[in-house]
């Protein structure tokens, strides 16, 4: 499975901010770390701000702060802000007249369901722990 660039940036930005909720990071600081333009990242941060996951801080040294609940916000909620993920029964919603088509839809729905369950079970806090584990393995 591949995520769109905006979804990946949103997850990375939230992880950076949630790792230290008192810290503010500017769009340029986050963009530099992941090698993306401030222009692209600004749009992502705007959407996260509107969703209540970050808050913008004005003034010198302003930027963004994490304002969500790291133990409650799941990857599914974040990614769904940027792209459409297959939802339960989505393939059945556009019924194929053939038995082969319905059989294929059944398989694709199974895959969609697993993707949604997996992304919906992993929170920002869980991802931060996983990233820490990765660092200790380096």
């Amino acid at each position, binding site marked *: 499975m591949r995520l769109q660039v905006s979804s990946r940036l949103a997850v990375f930005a939230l992880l950076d901010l949630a790792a230290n909720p008192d810290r503010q990071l500017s769009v340029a600081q986050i963009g530099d770390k992941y090698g993306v333009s401030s222009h692209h990242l600004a749009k992502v941060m705007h959407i996260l701000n509107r969703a209540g996951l970050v808050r913008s801080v004005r003034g010198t040294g302003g930027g963004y702060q994490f304002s969500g609940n790291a*133990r409650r916000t*799941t990857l599914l909620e974040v990614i769904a802000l940027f792209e459409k993920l297959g939802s339960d029964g989505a393939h059945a919603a556009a019924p194929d007249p053939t038995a082969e088509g319905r059989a294929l839809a059944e398989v694709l729905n199974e895959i969609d*369901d697993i993707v949604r*369950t*997996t992304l*919906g*079970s*992993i*929170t920002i*806090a*869980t991802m931060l*722990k*996983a990233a820490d*584990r990765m660092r200790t393995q380096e």
Partner: protein
Amino acid sequence: MPHIIALDARVTGLAKPDYWRDVFERYGRRRLDERMFLVAEPVDARERMPLLGFVVGEVRAWEFGSAPCGWVFALSVEPRVRLRGTGRALLEALSSEFSKAGVTKMRTMVARDNHLHHLFFRSEGMMAGPYIQLEKDLD
């Protein structure tokens, strides 16, 4: 045992007294080195709760070709004391028992719609394993 039965009934909405008595007989009394039935009780008597939670596990070997590993097949925490680390303490205690029994991996199974258990086990670092559960309706 009545407290285990009552907690499970409150959490799942289904009372299963015979099942829990059978599990306790098999897991709490026999083959103690491979089967674990652990309970969390309040340290502070003022809690006025006899039981904070419980976990049941077993070391199983070679089912489905799997090398010996520890299975967590029941874990429940009193809803009034959630988010206080009881579940984590129970899982850590069970992990320790599994390690003493000589296994290096722990496994469980969670219903797809059990969001709470998914969040909990994921937060404890558990990931999808090498097996996929399959089933079919019997005609």
